[in-house]
């Protein structure tokens, strides 16, 4: 019996490391949205943890964008930029492309492209 103890410990550690590995993978699967202002990440939101919709504003030297966060999704609802492309582009989940407000140098990007994709050409 004593002979087997080192092996039992080894197998136990192996199972433990597998469990940790799988757990880490699982926690990384939440949909994370990152908001960049002038190239700097100013906020991270785990969209899968959102239960109630809410809005907030991002004010930079270039202007103001109002952002709506709903369970699993994010979009720009108002902006005082001239082209309004960020408002019209809707959710980044649809196209998998980031929301970009070039005049305000604001980018909203999802950590993972939808549908198990790594990136999207378009």
């Amino acid at each position, binding site marked *: 019996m004593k002979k087997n103890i080192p092996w039992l410990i080894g197998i136990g550690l192996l199972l433990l490391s597998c469990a940790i590995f799988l757990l880490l993978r699982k926690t990384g699967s939440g949909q994370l949205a990152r908001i*960049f202002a002038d190239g700097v990440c100013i906020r991270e939101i785990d969209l899968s943890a959102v239960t109630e919709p809410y809005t907030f504003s991002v004010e930079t030297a270039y202007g103001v964008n109002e952002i709506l966060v709903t369970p699993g999704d994010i979009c720009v609802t108002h902006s005082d930029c001239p082209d309004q492309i960020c408002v019209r582009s809707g959710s980044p989940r649809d196209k998998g492309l980031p929301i970009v407000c070039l005049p305000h140098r604001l980018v909203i990007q999802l950590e993972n492209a939808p*549908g198990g994709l790594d*990136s999207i050409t378009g």
Partner: protein
Amino acid sequence: MKRVLAAILFVLLLCGCAAGPSYQKVTFLAMDTVMTVNACGTDLPDAEQLVKSLEKKLSVTDPESEIFRLNRDKTASVSTQTLNLLETALALCERTGGALDITIYPALTAWGFTTESKHVPEASQIAALLPLIDYRKVQVDGSRISLPEGVMLDLGSVAKGYTGDVLIAALKESGVTSACLNLGGNVQVIGGKTDGSPWQIGVQDPHSDDVLGVLALRDQAAVTSGAYQRNFIGEDGNTYGHILDPETGYPADSGLAGVTVVGNCGVLCDGLSTALFVMGLDDAIRLWKSSRDFEAVFVNEDGSIAITEGLRDQFTLRQTGRELTVILR
């Protein structure tokens, strides 16, 4: 006891292998678009700095750039990088019979595509500009470039592809063997993913907000051109795309809604995606049949899809009910 230690070391080693080097993702705005570099490695080169130094040379609007000075003074000595790109672009203009033309800028300006005031110009204005659109008028003498009066150069149709190639080279030099770059919709990858599988790259459907299909890529670039990008609705209610036909000075109307070009070289894919979109399906297929350095996904205006046979094992359709044809050599 020795055995216990050996077992612990073995498990730790396994854990270390499973973790491996991690991906580092950076996002920044440059060249009027958003760029993301996702690379696996340590001591990675500063991608943003690299792109911005290229933009400083290639921008058509920055008064300090080499291209701006060339357009203003009609003659200028340019850096090796700008010269390399210019010569590659001119060769692509020639290869595509002028469907790609890097002297289209005066027409783009007339349409307001270079500003926020997009509009349909007078037909007489376009007609007057057409003689100025001819890449063969660009004179290259060593590193000195000269343009006739009125002719203007814009490397926008190839700059992002070239930038991708420069970034890929820099990443490989620092030992990166797995990376995925998205430079405003141009995707370029190094190797496959660290789990050994290829990168899964969605192709945007020009007709909807969905992904049309998926390309499995390793060490390749995929660049898309389409009328749905940066378009505008004129006072006449018609939609005008930003890709102009150098022959007419009007938005390309070739029957294609989008083209994705896949190949080993970013600048080639970038220039060709524009050119194939302009020339239309039949001419594009002819060019593909006489070439060996690219493959393509074509989306027709009627929604049907055609892929070249080299992509048969790399492209998977994501939408049901869409007609898919494989073009054979």
